[in-house]
């Protein structure tokens, strides 16, 4: 390849790339039949029934505080390879009142968000992480997993956790109790929640319920459903709460199938502000651009070959003459 031909092919490759941009991946939108949870921090009483039920239904071992001399209680500090959901507390000052930012406290649930456009699924090199094409539940296949832990690094919420202490480790994360569906069951955390703070249902219906709650005047009498939306009526009368004006999970990272209401700003509850565009969309666009039709790698290889060949030729000629 002479110098002229090299520039020619480079130009052609550039043209191919500019048309390749049309394949850039947009953030996916939510599935119409998506299933999820609505967690209302103002209803949560911190009883941790969800944590206990989750352990029981998912056959998880108890977790004791580090350096505890008397390991009697399951006391996970965060989600882990042994704990799929946990209730945390926001504490401030004198902790006078619940759901108050200053001198108050609030409960918050931590578990898999079941993102609309999950980074873990995008990052997984062997498709061990899968998003259900109908209900959008993000699940994990331990037989396909190679243990690379890319999902652990990719998740913006730090959800997938690796069982480092096991001989044959695996990833553990909430799978929305999909193993209970066949018997007509649903997420154990929502089933046992005594106040309906964790509510199971279709995301569209959960969002409608959240909209209804946000529209209520704080202090007004209302009813709260419990368990499962569309299931047997377990609702109970309550009083409307004062919310921060945000439904977390509506737009964050392209949206999540677990949505939150709270009386305290979400940054304080460990849920960061995230852009509406998902990391999966950004990284896959970059990859599609770089590797689209393998044009860029071939061009790059061509350039490398040209440089190498030119140098090697000089060397050979030098050696010949020498």
């Amino acid at each position: 390849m002479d110098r002229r031909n090299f520039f020619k092919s480079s130009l052609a490759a550039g043209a191919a790339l500019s048309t390749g941009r049309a394949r850039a991946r947009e953030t996916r939108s939510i599935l119409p039949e998506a299933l999820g949870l609505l967690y209302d921090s103002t209803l949560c009483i911190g009883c941790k029934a969800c944590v206990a039920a989750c352990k029981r239904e998912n056959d998880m071992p108890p977790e004791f505080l580090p350096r505890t001399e008397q390991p009697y209680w399951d006391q996970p500090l965060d989600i882990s390879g042994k704990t799929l959901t946990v209730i945390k507390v926001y504490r401030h000052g004198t902790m006078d009142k619940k759901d108050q930012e200053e001198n108050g406290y609030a409960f918050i649930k931590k578990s898999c968000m079941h993102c609309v456009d999950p980074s873990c699924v995008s990052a997984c090199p062997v498709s061990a992480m899968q998003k259900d094409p109908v209900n959008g539940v993000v699940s994990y296949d331990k037989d396909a997993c190679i243990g690379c832990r890319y999902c652990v690094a990719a998740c913006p919420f730090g959800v997938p956790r690796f069982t480092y202490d096991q001989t044959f480790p695996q990833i553990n994360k909430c799978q929305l109790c999909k193993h209970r569906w066949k018997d007509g069951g649903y997420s154990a955390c929502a089933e046992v929640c005594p106040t309906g703070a964790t509510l199971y249902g279709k995301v569209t219906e959960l969002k409608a319920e959240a909209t209804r709650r946000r529209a209520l005047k704080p202090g007004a009498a209302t009813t709260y459903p419990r368990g499962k939306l569309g299931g047997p009526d377990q609702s109970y009368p309550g009083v409307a709460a004062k919310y921060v004006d945000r439904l977390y999970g509506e737009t964050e990272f392209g949206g999540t199938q677990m949505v939150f209401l709270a009386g305290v700003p979400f940054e304080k509850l460990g849920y960061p502000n995230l852009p509406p565009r998902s990391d999966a969309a950004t990284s896959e666009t970059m990859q599609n651009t770089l590797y689209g039709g393998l044009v860029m790698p071939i061009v790059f290889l061509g350039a490398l070959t040209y440089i190498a060949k030119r140098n090697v030729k000089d060397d050979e000629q030098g050696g010949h003459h020498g």
Partner: protein
Amino acid sequence: MNETLFDLQRDQDEFAELARRLQISRREFLQFCTAVTATLGLPASAEAAVAKAVEKAKRPSVIWLHFQECTGCTESLLRAEHPTLEKLILDVISLDYHETLMAAAGHQAEAARKAAMKANKGKYVLVVEGAIPLKDNGIYCKIGGQKAIDMVKECAADAAAVIAIGSCASWGGMPSTDPNPTGAASAAEALGKPVVTIPGCPPNPYNFLAAVVHFLTFGKLPAVDQLGRPKFAYSRLVHENCERRAHFDAGRFAMEFGDPGHRQGYCLYKLGCKGPETYANCPTILFGDAGPGTWPVGCGHPCIGCTEKGVGFAKPIHQLAVLKNVVPPLSYPRVVEEQGGTSFAAAAALAAIAGAAAGGAAMLARNLGRSAEEKPAEKSE
């Protein structure tokens, strides 16, 4: 106060006299004193003072009025299983007027009340059982032709102390539930002044007896909270001492009556237990002297909050309670869990290593430059 029961037991004669009067053994009498002292939360040494006061003090005259009620408070006092209780009610105090218990009837009864009030002016204890109707000038409850409101005011005027027994007299209770057609009000509202209240439906007899014995022993009624409830009995939530509390903390709830969780004694919060918003000593003192588990939650029914205004008879029995816990337990994980701090020794060691590394790097860089400079110099030589 420093006298012990042993000192008292030497006074055999006094106890023999007491035993004759109460028709009980010395042992039974001391058992009663111990029980009352424990209910009051007083130190063990106070038993002696209680025993002495009960034994020696002139029995205070008690006038017991009944208004809008079911007589359940009186019944609970009389039905107690403790073998000597009814004797003590009648012998520790001089019950001069009590519509359920007195032998007199009609004008005789009212005359007895007036006579007792006159004889013990400023010294008798007035006990009010039942709410007092205030609507339409209080015409909805009359005793001997006298309106309840007039009667309670007349009796309270010269009383040394007023005790409201039961939820009706304490805050209105059942008769005051919406729409409250008779305008039923508490004794404190009717009298326009705070009184000691022993709420409950029915209240625990020991809470009442302990308040009376406190009055006998120390000459004043026990310390009360802002609602007039003795602090020894009503300062803790039912939830705090509940025998099912461990199930609440572990997230084990009975979902409906008779389900496996209910049979295994799980927490009744989800069935509407009002324990988390009701102040009472039911879980510790129990009812009826019949052994462990003899109280509503122990028997498998959620607490209905009978002692608490705005909860008992106001909220539906199976409505969820509001948690009055002051703060969440410390064992709960924080949003950002604090990591262990760095010790001084570890920080010093780290600083030493970092310093050595920085120094080494600087020396290396300088030597590199020097050797580069030195090499041409060697050539020129």
